[in-house]
């Protein structure tokens, strides 16, 4: 359980809130690069941390992320004309550049300096990998750009998707460090999902449904090790890294690509789930990439032209009780992503954590909440930079290994959980 005041602190991310200020210390994904595919492509509405913004790519290829609403009368610049190096409000023609600076007010005299004093709130928007990242905090404290490995392998080795999740970011994120649900909720996927099946590790997963956990502090967040019995005298370890505030990786399976997530608050009742797959040493095969596009693995099949999953709360997640009876899915919902989302959304927009009955196996979640809370308070009270801001903290990997029973996963996997460019993942 969690005190109500702490639950509120961790789940509210709007401007001026402690958790909102914490998120504003980091570069966070704002949208996929594919959403602004070319110069002068249509602007895109972006809501992040309860701030309504519009993103655009101007005639010179510069990305802008600015207040959604025109300074004149408050019309949405989503209707704006993206042309000639700026975004023009179609209502009265006010025009803004990629920094939010007003550069033209047609009703003013030709030489008027009026527009120099009109500037919309804006944030940097930078392409790293397949994502456009923004930093919504103090420019003087802007850290180095993200260095997560999935962003820096060659394009043919990586794929990222996103989906809208209708819940607070925290309950979505907590699923990412909750290794014990895999054996139940995702058991169907371990047998059939083209991006999971066939790995030796899956057998250990299915045979031992009562994993042991070790949770260890790191400079940037946590490692959560889940240990299951393997051959006599050995354990199968699945090691999940969390980098603050919202980056997690799923331990790999065989030679399948590695995957993970970044959860980004839209507002307090919605979040974006960015899901990525990459292989550190080889290109994704056509079949793998197609499987990701088709919503397998950690991805979702979305309604065309949107980032809303086809299976969503409005259609009861297309639950199929017959498939459940046949053993194809554990919950009746198809796909790893929507299996998670359906249950996390069912908790309500912000789950009441004062009513929980946690067990020791939830220690990863307990520790993560504590780390987030302490970091938010230390930032608010002492201005202390939180873990995970330093790009050095981003250079982590998940791992899945079999170790002799006496060995500590932290000692034995010290290299396996570090990014070594060009080195294969540690995976069973």
């Amino acid at each position, binding site marked *: 359980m969690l005190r109500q005041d702490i639950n509120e602190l961790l789940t509210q991310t709007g401007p001026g809130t402690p958790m909102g200020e914490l998120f504003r210390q980091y570069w966070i994904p704002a949208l996929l690069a594919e959403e602004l595919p070319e110069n002068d492509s249509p602007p895109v509405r972006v809501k992040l941390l309860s701030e309504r913004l519009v993103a655009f790519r101007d005639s010179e290829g510069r990305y802008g992320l600015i207040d959604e609403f025109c300074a004149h009368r408050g019309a949405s610049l989503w209707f704006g004309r993206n042309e000639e190096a700026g975004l023009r409000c179609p209502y009265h023609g006010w025009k803004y550049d990629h920094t939010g600076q007003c550069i033209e007010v047609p009703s003013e005299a030709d030489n008027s300096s009026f527009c120099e004093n009109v500037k919309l709130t804006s944030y940097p928007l930078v392409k790293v990998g397949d994502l456009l990242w923004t930093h919504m905090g103090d420019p003087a404290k802007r850290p180095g750009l993200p260095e997560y490995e999935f962003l820096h392998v060659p394009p043919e080795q990586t794929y990222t998707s996103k989906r809208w999740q*209708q819940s607070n970011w925290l309950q979505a994120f907590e699923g990412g460090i909750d290794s014990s649900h895999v054996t139940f909720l995702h058991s169907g996927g371990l047998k059939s999902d083209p991006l999971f099946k066939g790995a030796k590790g899956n057998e250990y997963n299915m045979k031992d449904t009562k994993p042991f956990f070790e*949770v260890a502090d790191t400079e940037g967040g946590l490692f959560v090790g889940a240990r299951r019995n393997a051959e006599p005298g050995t354990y199968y370890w699945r090691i999940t890294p969390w980098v603050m505030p919202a980056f997690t990786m799923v331990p790999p399976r065989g030679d399948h690509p590695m995957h993970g997530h970044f959860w980004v608050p839209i507002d307090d009742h919605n979040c974006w789930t960015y899901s990525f797959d990459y292989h550190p040493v080889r290109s994704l095969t056509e079949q793998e990439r197609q499987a990701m596009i088709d919503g397998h693995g950690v991805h979702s099949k979305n309604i065309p032209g949107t980032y809303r999953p086809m299976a969503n709360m409005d259609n009861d997640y297309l639950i199929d009780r017959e498939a459940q009876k046949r053993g194809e899915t554990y919950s009746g919902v198809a796909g790893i992503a929507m299996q998670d989302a359906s249950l996390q959304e069912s908790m309500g927009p912000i789950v009441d954590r004062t009513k929980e009955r946690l067990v020791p196996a939830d220690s990863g979640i307990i*520790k993560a909440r504590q780390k987030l809370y302490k970091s938010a308070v230390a930032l608010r009270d002492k201005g202390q930079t939180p873990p995970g801001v330093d790009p050095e903290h981003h250079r982590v990997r998940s791992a899945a290994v079999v170790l002799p029973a006496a060995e500590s996963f932290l000692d034995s996997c010290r290299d396996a959980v570090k990014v070594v460019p060009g080195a294969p993942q540690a995976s069973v």
Partner: protein
Amino acid sequence: MAGPYLSESARAASAAESRFRITRPIAPARDARIIALDDRAAAVVRRVADRTWARAGFYLAGDGDRVAPRTLDGAPVALADLLTGTDVVVVVATDDTGRNAAAAVGAGCGERAVMTAGVVLGDGFAADDAVAALRPHARVLLLSADEGDLVDLLTALRV
């Protein structure tokens, strides 16, 4: 009922419907024993014991290598008695001196099907042997630099 909603799931997941979740007092779920394995752990456990807990007993595991459980007041307790009636044991270690106690408590919990959790404070390496002794038995090991983890764990478990 607010709406309109396109499905039962959409209505049930709404903020409006969250107000109708049943509210009633939740009884403490656990009858916990918290056992310090070494001297520094004992100091931590004494501080934590000063807080208000619903159903928790706090103990010291022994002297150095010797397994000799006792209460925080120094009264000896048989390990079997200490583990009777509990459903979760949390052991706390900061170094290796409690390795024998870790093994004894872990084995005792295993025999009685008592959930065992370990909180290892410090850099982890100083308590390698204690961790190794606990590993076969402790369902959860929390390796941490923060003694607040013990408080948070017990609070989250509604001890």
